[in-house]
């Protein structure tokens, strides 16, 4: 018999001197957010198991020798956390500098704001700093892969793999600086196991994966989020009842996402829900 989850207790944690109460099993990041702290994250996915890849969310925990990734470490009773000490801010600064010097963060939400906040200067490694450079992969009409923007957070791999979609169309290939996210034998998506659910695009934090509609509009210079509305409704295909958030610009649907906290979808959709809106 598979056990059901028992009720969760509440525990007290001290964040920057303030005590907050969170359910047992919450992460330090959850506790920080409960306390109203704005911790930057990139590889953290609210629907995914923490991967500890980017380390931009590190904080100091009293009694801990090293900095602690807040997105994965569970909060414990009586824990004392400092979110903006010198060690953690300087670490975040260097992480942002290393990432921005090697990949293109221009479409990463809030990256610019964080760089300014932490005084990150990616140019300080000089012109010779290694960069991830490869051509944009446009091999189908639904979504585009631009690995110049990839920070290797593995969220797409987890979403495609055993955490949600279980299609296993992509994985990490290569070693060290040359590692990339790739299909089997680096084949085009159309020759891969991909089923075009777009659940990898849903979790991508940098825009390395983007819908073709958004990619094309950005290329034309017509993509304008300030003119977009977001409306959550229900998919019109099968009877499962998936929640769709329609991003609409000038009375046209320009992309479809799904709310991550929804009990039906948990942020996931299939090819019809994600892309089958062309007929309206």
């Amino acid at each position, binding site marked *: 018999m598979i056990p059901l989850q028992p009720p969760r207790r509440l525990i007290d944690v001290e964040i920057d001197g303030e005590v907050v109460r969170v359910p047992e099993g919450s992460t330090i990041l959850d506790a920080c957010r409960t306390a109203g702290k704005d911790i930057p994250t990139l590889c953290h996915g609210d629907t995914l198991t923490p991967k500890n890849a980017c380390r931009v969310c590190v904080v100091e925990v009293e009694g801990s020798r090293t900095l602690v990734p807040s997105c994965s470490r569970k909060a414990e009773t009586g824990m004392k956390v400092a979110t903006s000490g010198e060690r953690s801010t300087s670490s975040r600064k260097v992480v942002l500098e290393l990432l921005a010097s090697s990949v293109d963060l221009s479409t990463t939400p809030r990256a610019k704001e964080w760089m300014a906040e932490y005084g990150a200067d990616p140019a300080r490694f000089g012109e010779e700093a290694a960069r991830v450079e490869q051509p944009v992969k446009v091999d189908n009409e*639904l979504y585009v892969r631009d690995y110049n923007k990839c920070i290797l957070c593995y969220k797409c791999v987890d979403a495609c793999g055993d955490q*949600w979609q279980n299609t296993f169309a992509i994985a990490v290939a290569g070693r060290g600086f040359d590692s990339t996210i790739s299909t089997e034998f680096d084949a085009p998506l159309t020759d891969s196991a991909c089923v075009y659910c777009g659940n990898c695009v849903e979790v991508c934090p940098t825009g390395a994966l983007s819908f073709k509609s958004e990619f094309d509009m950005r290329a034309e210079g017509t993509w304008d989020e300030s003119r977009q509305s977001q409306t959550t409704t229900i998919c*019109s*295909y*099968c009877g499962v009842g998936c929640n769709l958030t329609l991003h609409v610009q000038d009375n046209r649907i320009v992309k479809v996402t799904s709310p991550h*906290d929804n009990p039906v979808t948990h942020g996931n959709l299939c090819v019809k829900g994600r892309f089958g809106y062309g007929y309206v």
Partner: protein
Amino acid sequence: MSYDRLTRPLVREDGVLREASWEEALDRAAEGFRRNIEAHGPDCFAMLSCARSTNEMNYVGQKFTRVVVGTNNVDSCNRTCHAPSVAGLSAVFGSGGGTSSYQEVEDTDVIVMWGSAARNAHPIFFHHVLKGLKKGARMFAVDPRRTGTAQWAHRWLGLNVGTDIPLAHAVAREIIHAGLHNRAFIERATAGFEEFAASVEPWTLTVAEQVTGVPAEAIRELAHTYARADRAQLVWTLGITEHHNATDNVRALINLSLLTGHVGRYGSGLSPLRGQNNVQGGGDMGAIPNRLPGFQDILDPTVRTRFEQAWNIGIQPRYGLNLTQMLEGMAEGEVTTCYLIGENPVQSEADSLACVKRLSMLDHLVVQDIFLTKTAQMADVVLPASAAWCEADGTFTNSERRVQRVRKAVEPPGEARDDIWIMCEIARRLGHDWHYDGAEEVWNELRALSPAHQGMSYERLAELQGIQWPCPSLTELEPPYLHGRLWTENPGPPAPFGILRHSPPVDLLDEEYPLRLTTGRRLDSYNTGVQSSGFASPLRRGETIELCPEDAVRLGVVEGEEVRITSRRGSVIAPVYIDPALRPGLVFMTMHFPDEVDTNALTIEATCPIAGTAEFKAAAVRVEKLVAVS
């Protein structure tokens, strides 16, 4: 082909459809209804309400039929898919909804997917199944094809098409003979066990193996695993319901849950997966011939009185015509006018040629749709509607009975208008001055009449991301599963076992038609393809006839080669696709591309006498090489 949205009303003049103003089109629509009702009485009218539109639209649609016209002849295309599930479940439990919720599939021990290609047809439901599997649940897939679902199963039971009842009976017999049935539950909460046990007695494992093609040992394992599980979910889709004896198929599965007590508890239940976004809601709203809103029986005088007082009219104390009977009524001249909202029966009904003939016999046909479908092309008046899910406000109800908010995100194109506005305008022309200030006003009217929906204010639906019915209270929530009463000291009306007989597919195989054709869906496409043709799916490969490699060799055909497929009703040409998931003798087609290949020219219109569903899943065909003309 891809369809353009309708943006102007159309009326037929001198045999052709021309553009018209709303005023003219609405007048023409109303005038035709009035003419027919005056000449033949209200029962000459039939409405097909849209299983893809909102609950609010369906509520107004059935109210239009019952109040403005005065008949119960309202139905929707859930007839072609899930009416048997509703009929079966409500006959046993008094309620037509699936008994479990998606979360319970994650928390169960055994999952039986029976006739359900959910991996492709309901991919996000299958995510919940996959979560359950990762937690350690065991899964059985019962399907003639080794589908994407079956590939995840611990065991695949590849039965012959149309032998679901023998298989279920053999499972039941094995459970009883092994002493694994839940005696206390049967005693307390069910009726008719002795007779049921006698009726399954002939179905030994050996006999069942001969009839179903499933090895006896696999049947035994399914029986023992299901019966021994602490919690078990039984999930089915169209593989169970698109048969001529579909309601019996559903009852055969329900019997297994009654035998083992796998219903009415958290994690144990019955889940029919709905094929369209609001099939569940359409029925809940009373857009079916035998139920008033809230799935309340028309034959119950207290229910009827409540509605008669609220609507200030009399309601006929008898069931109206279902879709199948409506089509028959057209052929016999009893149904002379029809109001079709968002339905495409010409391409969705089995035996499509017969359907065209029947619709063409109508005196007055009004079609309200977002596209000029094949059905709309036959209409006298075509009214351009908005697309419910993104151009209207309202609610849908999903397969776990969760009512969720639908919100308007874009403006409809051209002069297309909201379904409810259109119906109110026609009602006004027929002497009923209806007006609703938005969908919420409709919803609140429904809530006042349906106890199951009473507690679901729009505000609460938004806050809780949907609420599962029943929800009678504004402050409390019911458990996510139905029929907990069966486990209480006073279980209420007992759940009856169904006494069923095996009835093989109507379309028999013989030397002339030796292959069994079954139909289904693919991941990236949907029903008659009207919606899904609008995006460039890299997975789409058009209609094909799928054969197993052995049959292809025997017929001397190769992949991509065009062949002729012939049934006793029609003949089509399609290219071959080789699929090792099929077994010899079994071929597969979809119904997604009717403009290229009209699969339903082949299927049979043998219908379930209880629910009226057609046997899409089992036609007899032959496949022939095309002879080159030199």
